[in-house]
Each structure stands twice: as structure tokens, then as C-alpha cells.
């Protein structure tokens, strides 16, 4: 680390691979001070102006808001609040076109400016060195500060890191042509910027603070050197001008010679990079309690008569800024039909290499917009063409020479055209920083960056779809499992219920069985007796003699012996006859019950048939009467001049009757066939 500082002190730096030297065009605006604009009539504030999530709304339509008042609050760490840039009334909260290459609409707050510019109550902090880390981070988060270099990463997350920081790098390179916003901001606000850097120093406590600034900003360099001359920790590093030295990884390479590997973050090397405009916003927020409500925007290009850097309130429409700077509307050559309105002259948000043309001049300035470029036709003829001059790749390899990420742009281009996502990922497409150096040097005028952007979006989309498919699969499997479990549970329940029923039935039938068997036994006995009585005619003597014998045994024990002897004899006689008699009895009983059962069954059948018939007749009758009734009622209603309704009722009634008759016919048929079968 000491050797790095030694090298820096000697004014020696490393080099990153590739890079280009486009015409700077910074002189258009660099000589003029930052101008304050009169308040616009209306401000449009997109709820989301950064990477992450949008905050929750705190205001409603019709609310009066003061300058600096928070309009959203963050419930998520990745959410950053937005604030009212001036006092006024919320007139609408609706979707509106935002500054995005898609030209899509997002939820925006519309503020009608009242012109008074009344501040909310502010608490000015005299000495920030007494604030704790948490207080500072809370102030930064509440001020809604997101990285102002371009990506808009929430600053309070970036500065809230635990590990030891070797280098805090302040990015003031501003390498893209035309843009001078940071240059002038440093020139005019160097004290405040250094305060912001000191606050970051207090938070992160890095070993060294390096300010990387390109050598094409002499005034800014001088101002920074003056402001930091009493502070040995802060080193102002004047870098050779080369695009894109302002890229995070490129700047780290130039200053420290360290490469940030693919898929890792600078923090893994103990390095934090902050944009210099963000430092100004931090000092404003922590010391003056001014949330991020304004920024410096470079209005430049030869199509403007008064190009200048402006202090712009967030939410100001681009059209207002263009009017303020004297936008001369050059009509572009139209290749389309003469009837269609001529397309707007190109207006580019951001720099010429990494910016995008905006489709609608009504879009508002947001936290990340640093430049509005309105080129003239001579200056930038390609921006006026509605056709592409692209020709086939000649494999010259210049793109690979200038790529700061050391990728293979032409290989990437072919894979992107072939939509070979696997190959693109293998070629490290996601290390591409969209700097546009390859497209700048391409002799075939291939818009390489556009192909990469499309491919990146497609791959991200595919990844999202894959995640969704995985989720759908999991849900499908879970559902199948659940249905299976429910099925088995149901079956178990059914089985249990059936078993319980069976048990109850068995118990009942067991009881009933014994009862009925007792009855049957009684019946059988009675029958047997009857049968025996009828058989008595066959054995009158024997039984009579037996009884008399019994009487005799009771009355005269003397004759007992004789009686016994007689009985013996009789018994011997009976035993010869009795078996035949009992057999006959049994037979009779069986025949009797069979006949009875048959009779009962026949009776039941007859009864059933009768019931069926009668019920059908009854229903027929009833429906007939119903129909008559209905007809009558229908007639009544027609007399009451409700013809339509009545007709509907009639139709419905008819349909119902028809359906019923049909059903009945069917039932009758079925029952007759049943009867036939049963008989």
C-alpha cells in the first residue's frame, strides 16, 4: 500500500486496457458558471430514481408540501425517499413517462409550484465530527442520496460497511465528452465537497483518500488542491485523459493497479468508490439538512444557443431546460412518408457515448441525470439518421484493442446476433460496462453496445423465467403431494367410518340375530306342537295312555311298578313310530315358511308396483293442474298488460312442464320395464 502511495506521490499511475480519446467538447460549457434557473411551473417526481425499490408514499393529492419535505419513506433498505424540491401542491399521483430508454411510464408525483420556495424546518449541524456513525448514515439515508454518477446505487448502503477500508476513491474523472457538471461543481463548491469527503472519512476511516480527476480540468484541480492542502490523507490524483477512466473498475486500476475480478465488488479489495457530486450531496445533507433535491446538469450541444451548466431541481422537465438554454429545433431528414409529422430532433440524456436518446421532452430530470445533449446536424449527423449505417464486421479487431474490460467485442457480437446465451455468458458479457468504446472505433459502424444491451436484457429475462419455472415446478410438486395426502387421508377416513359402521351393524345383527332366533325357536316350537297335535290323531292312544300312566304314578305308588313296566313297553313301541312322525313335522314346517316368504315377496312387489303407478299418476295430475293454474295466472297477467314478462314466465313454465313430462315419461318407462322384469 505504501508503494502505491509512493507511486501516486511521484505522479505515476497504472494503465487500464484499451480506452479511446474522443473529441472532448467540454469547452462548450466549461468556461461558464453554474446558473440558477427561475422556478418551473410544474415538477414531476418519479418515485423511483435509483437502483432498488421505490418508497412508500407519504402524501396525497391536494397536499401542500414544503421544500425539502419527504414525499416517500423507505420501508426497505434498498429504497430511497424522494423529497419536494420546492414548496407547492401535489396535483396528481399517476403514471408518467420517465427518463428511461424504454419510454415507459412509472408512478410519478406532480407538484404545482407555488413560487414561494418555503423551506421545511431545518436543523443545521455545526460540527459533524460529533455525530455518531448511525446518525450520519441515517441522515444520508433520509436525504435520499443515491450515487449521482449514473447507476444510482443507494449511498447509505455503500458507506455502511464493516471491514477495513484501504482506499476511499473519489471519482471526479468525468471522462465522457461534453459533460462538465462535476468540473464546475468542484470549481464552485470545493469547500463543501471536501466537507463531504471528511464525513465519508469519518464513516469509513480509510487509510488513504484518493481523488481521481482527469487532467483536462485545471480549475477544478486547483480548487481541490487548495481545499485539501492541509490534509495529508487526501491525495488529488491528476490522471491522463482517456475514456473511460471514470469507470469504477478502470479508476481503481489506474490509481491502485488492482484488478476487480469478475463477479466481485471493490469492497472485497478494501476499496470504496464515491462520485464527487455524491460527496457534495452528503455534505449538504449532513451539515445543512438539505435533502437531495437539486443537481448540476450540463445542457450542451451545438443545437443550444446558450449551453451552460445549470442548478436543476429534480423533477424539472427537459423541455423547460431546453427552452431556457435556447434550443434550436433542427428538423431531421425523414425517410418516412411525408404525411407523418417530422420526428423530434435528437435529445440525448447522459453523455454521447453512454447516454440514450429520450423519446419525449416532457421527461423529468432525476437523481442520476448529469447531462442533456442536444447536438446539431453537423456535429452529430448519425443522430439524425433514421437508418443504420451498419455493414458487415471485417474482423479488424479494433474493438478488442479498445475494450477496457478486455472482452472480445466481435465474438460477443456474433453470439448476441445468434442469441447464443451460453456462449455470451462464457465470454463474460456481464463484465461489459456499456462504455461504447468498441462501437466508437468500429469501422463498420456496428452498434455493438446495442446488441450487448439487448442480449443482457434477454439473459436476465431468461434467468427470471428459469426462476419462475423452478418455483412453478416446486408448487406443482407440492400440490401433487398434497392431493395425494388428501386422497389417502380421505380413504383412511372412509375405511375407518366403514369399519365403525360394520362393527355397529354386526353388534346389532348379533343382538337381533339372537332375538329373532329366539322368536324363530318359539315359532318352531309352536309349529312343532301344532304339527304334533295334528299328528295326535295318529297317536291318540299312546299319548292318552302315557298321561293316564303319569296320573297313576302320582296317585298310586303301588301301581308304579306296573306302570313303569307298561311305560317301558309303550316307549319301546313309540320309539319304533316316533322318528317317522318327527320327520314329517319338520318337512311341514320348512314347506310352510317357504310358502310364506314367497307370498310376502309377491305382496311386496305388488305393493311397490301399485305405489309407483299411483305416484306417477298423481304427479301427472298435479303437474297438469299446475299448468292449468299457470295458464290462468298467465292470462291474468296478460290482462294486466305485462305481456312480455308473462310470455317469459309462460315459456319458462312450458319448458319446465316439458322437462318434467319428459322426465316422467322416462320414469314411467323405467318403472314399467322394472315391473315387467320383476313380474
Amino acid at each position: 500500500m505504501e508503494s502505491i502511495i509512493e507511486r501516486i506521490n511521484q505522479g505515476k499511475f497504472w494503465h487500464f486496457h484499451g480506452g479511446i480519446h474522443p473529441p472532448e467538447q467540454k469547452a462548450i460549457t466549461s468556461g461558464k458558471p453554474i446558473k440558477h434557473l427561475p422556478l418551473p411551473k410544474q415538477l414531476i417526481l418519479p418515485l423511483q430514481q435509483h437502483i432498488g425499490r421505490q418508497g412508500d408514499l407519504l402524501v396525497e393529492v391536494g397536499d401542500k408540501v414544503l421544500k425539502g419535505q419527504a414525499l416517500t419513506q423507505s420501508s426497505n433498505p434498498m429504497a430511497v425517499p424522494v423529497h419536494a424540491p420546492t414548496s407547492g401542491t401535489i396535483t396528481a399521483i399517476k403514471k408518467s413517462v420517465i427518463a428511461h430508454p424504454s419510454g415507459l411510464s412509472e408512478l410519478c408525483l406532480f407538484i404545482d409550484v407555488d413560487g414561494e420556495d418555503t423551506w421545511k424546518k431545518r436543523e443545521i449541524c455545526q460540527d459533524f465530527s460529533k455525530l455518531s456513525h448511525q446518525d450520519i448514515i441515517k441522515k444520508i439515508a433520509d436525504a435520499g442520496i443515491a450515487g449521482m454518477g449514473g447507476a444510482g446505487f443507494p449511498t447509505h448502503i455503500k458507506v455502511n460497511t464493516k471491514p477495513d477500508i484501504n482506499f476511499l476513491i473519489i471519482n471526479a474523472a468525468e471522462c465522457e465528452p461534453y459533460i462538465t457538471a462535476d468540473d464546475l461543481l468542484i470549481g464552485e463548491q470545493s469547500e463543501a465537497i471536501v466537507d463531504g469527503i471528511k464525513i465519508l472519512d469519518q464513516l469509513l476511516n480509510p487509510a488513504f483518500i484518493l481523488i481521481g480527476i482527469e487532467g483536462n480540468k485545471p480549475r477544478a484541480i486547483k480548487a481541490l488542491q487548495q481545499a485539501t492542502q492541509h490534509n495529508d490523507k487526501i491525495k488529488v490524483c491528476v490522471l491522463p485523459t482517456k475514456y473511460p477512466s471514470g469507470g469504477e473498475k478502470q479508476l481503481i486500476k489506474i490509481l491502485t493497479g488492482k484488478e476487480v475480478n469478475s463477479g466481485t465488488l471493490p469492497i472485497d479489495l478494501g476499496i470504496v468508490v464515491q462520485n464527487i457530486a455524491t460527496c457534495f450531496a452528503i455534505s449538504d445533507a449532513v451539515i445543512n439538512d438539505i435533502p437531495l433535491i437539486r443537481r448540476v446538469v450540463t445542457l450542451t450541444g451545438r443545437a443550444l444557443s446558450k449551453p451552460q451548466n445549470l442548478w436543476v431541481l429534480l423533477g424539472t422537465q427537459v423541455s423547460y431546460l431546453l427552452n431556457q438554454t435556447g434550443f434550436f429545433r433542427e428538423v431531421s431528414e425523414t425517410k418516412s412518408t411525408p404525411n407523418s409529422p417530422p420526428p423530434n430532433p435528437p435529445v440525448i440524456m447522459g453523455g454521447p457515448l453512454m447516454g440514450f436518446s429520450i423519446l419525449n421532452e416532457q421527461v423529468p430530470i432525476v437523481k442520476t441525470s448529469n447531462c442533456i445533449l442536444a447536438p446539431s446536424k453537423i456535429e452529430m449527423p448519425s443522430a439524425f439518421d433514421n437508418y443504420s449505417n451498419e455493414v458487415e464486421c471485417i474482423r479488424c479487431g479494433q474493438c478488442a484493442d479498445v475494450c477496457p474490460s478486455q472482452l472480445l467485442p466481435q465474438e460477443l457480437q456474433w453470439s448476441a446476433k445468434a442469441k447464443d446465451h451460453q456462449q455470451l455468458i462464457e465470454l463474460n458479457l456481464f463484465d461489459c460496462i456499456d462504455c461504447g468504446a468498441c462501437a466508437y472505433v468500429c469501422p463498420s459502424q456496428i452498434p455493438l453496445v446495442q446488441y450487448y444491451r439487448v442480449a443482457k436484457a434477454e439473459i436476465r429475462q431468461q434467468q427470471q423465467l428459469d426462476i419462475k419455472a423452478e418455483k412453478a415446478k416446486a408448487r406443482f410438486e407440492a400440490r401433487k403431494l398434497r392431493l395425494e395426502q388428501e386422497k389417502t387421508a380421505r380413504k383412511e377416513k372412509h375405511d375407518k367410518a366403514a369399519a365403525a359402521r360394520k362393527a355397529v351393524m354386526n353388534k346389532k345383527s348379533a343382538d337381533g340375530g339372537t332375538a329373532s332366533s329366539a322368536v324363530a325357536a318359539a315359532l318352531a316350537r309352536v309349529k312343532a306342537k301344532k304339527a304334533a297335535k295334528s299328528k295326535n290323531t295318529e297317536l291318540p292312544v299312546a299319548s292318552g295312555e302315557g298321561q293316564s300312566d303319569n296320573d297313576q304314578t302320582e296317585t298310586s305308588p303301588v301301581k308304579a311298578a306296573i306302570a313303569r313296566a307298561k311305560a317301558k313297553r309303550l316307549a319301546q313301541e313309540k320309539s319304533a313310530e316316533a322318528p317317522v312322525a318327527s320327520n314329517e313335522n319338520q318337512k311341514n314346517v320348512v314347506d310352510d315358511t317357504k310358502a310364506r316368504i314367497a307370498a310376502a315377496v309377491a305382496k311386496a312387489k305388488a305393493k311397490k308396483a301399485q305405489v309407483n303407478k299411483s305416484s306417477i299418476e298423481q304427479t301427472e295430475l298435479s303437474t297438469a293442474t299446475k299448468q292449468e293454474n299457470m295458464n290462468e295466472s298467465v292470462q291474468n297477467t296478460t290482462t294486466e298488460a305485462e305481456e312480455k314478462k308473462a310470455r317469459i314466465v309462460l315459456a319458462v313454465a312450458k319448458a319446465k312442464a316439458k322437462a318434467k313430462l319428459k322426465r316422467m315419461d322416462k320414469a314411467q318407462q323405467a318403472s314399467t320395464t322394472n315391473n315387467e322384469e320383476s313380474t
Partner: protein
Amino acid sequence: MNILIAILVLGAISALFGALLGYASIRFHVEGDPIVEQLDALLPQTQCGQCGYPGCKPYAEAVANGEAINKCAPGGEDTIKKIADLLGVDVQPIDENHEQDDSSQSNRPKVAFIIEEDCIGCTKCIQACPVDAILGAAKQMHTILIDECTGCDLCVAPCPVDCIEMRPTAETIQNWQWDLNKIAVKQVD
């Protein structure tokens, strides 16, 4: 004698290799059919049943057993291409019977939408949904969990009051795709 030695040696070698193969087949036994898993991973997991199978996994199993590879309508040609690559067969045009209805102008993915004032709370769509993306109870209004809906269309047919329709999802900044033809972002020098 020489012949006997030759037979013995060859016999010994064949026995050795036979034993080796037998051991290997047990030692390195592969459970299940991995090709089914790979096929299943390629399918879009909408569980829509448009291929004629009750879900993506059953279709993957069927394809592994020789079913045509061109029946997945939601996956479209991309999926057919991937399956063809995996199985080493020719790419086939998508089956006409399984072609997705592309009459609508929007090519954004669609999800089901319940017109809530018409919903009678019959729960029939809930039973039809393969991914449990419909929330509701008997005689209560139902609603679709848009994030979980795969756009399979299976809930539309069972609805007795036709209150479910397929609507394209909204285009947002997050899912927006650069269109080279529509928006020319100019490179300038």
C-alpha cells in the same frame, strides 16, 4: 494340448471380465432415468397439460419413452430445439394441434385474470390450477396470484360463468426488453 490351453486362457479371461462387468453394474448402478430429469429441466413448467400429459414431468417421461418432442406449446421452438439437442434428434416444427394461439398482437406472457364481480365462488378454477395460484373459498370471490400464475389457461374452461380471461402482463422497466428496431440509441462521435 495347445487348444486346451487357449480355451482355458480365453475362458478365464471371459470369466474375469464377466465378473468385472457384473460388479460394475451393481457398483455404479444409476437410480431412475436421469434423462427424464434433464428433459423436465428444459420444459417451461407451466404444467398446462397442452401436450396431453398432466404436467411437465409426465411429458418429460413420455418424451424419454419416445413421444414426439414438438408438443410443448408454451415452450415453443426454443424448447423443441433444446430437447432436440439433448436427445440428439432432428428439430421438428411445433405440432399444429399444440400450437399456441398467437392471434393476439401482444407477445408478452399472459396470466389469468378473474373478473371479480362475476365470480360466484364455485372453486372450480382452484381445483384446476396446477400450481395453486388461485386464492379463494366456496362462495367467496377468488383471485389470481399473478406472480405464481404460469399462464397455462387451465382455469378458463372450468369457470361456469366465464369470468376468467387471459391478460398480458404489464410491461415495466424491470421486464422491458431493448428493441433494436424500435428505439435507435445512437452512437455518436
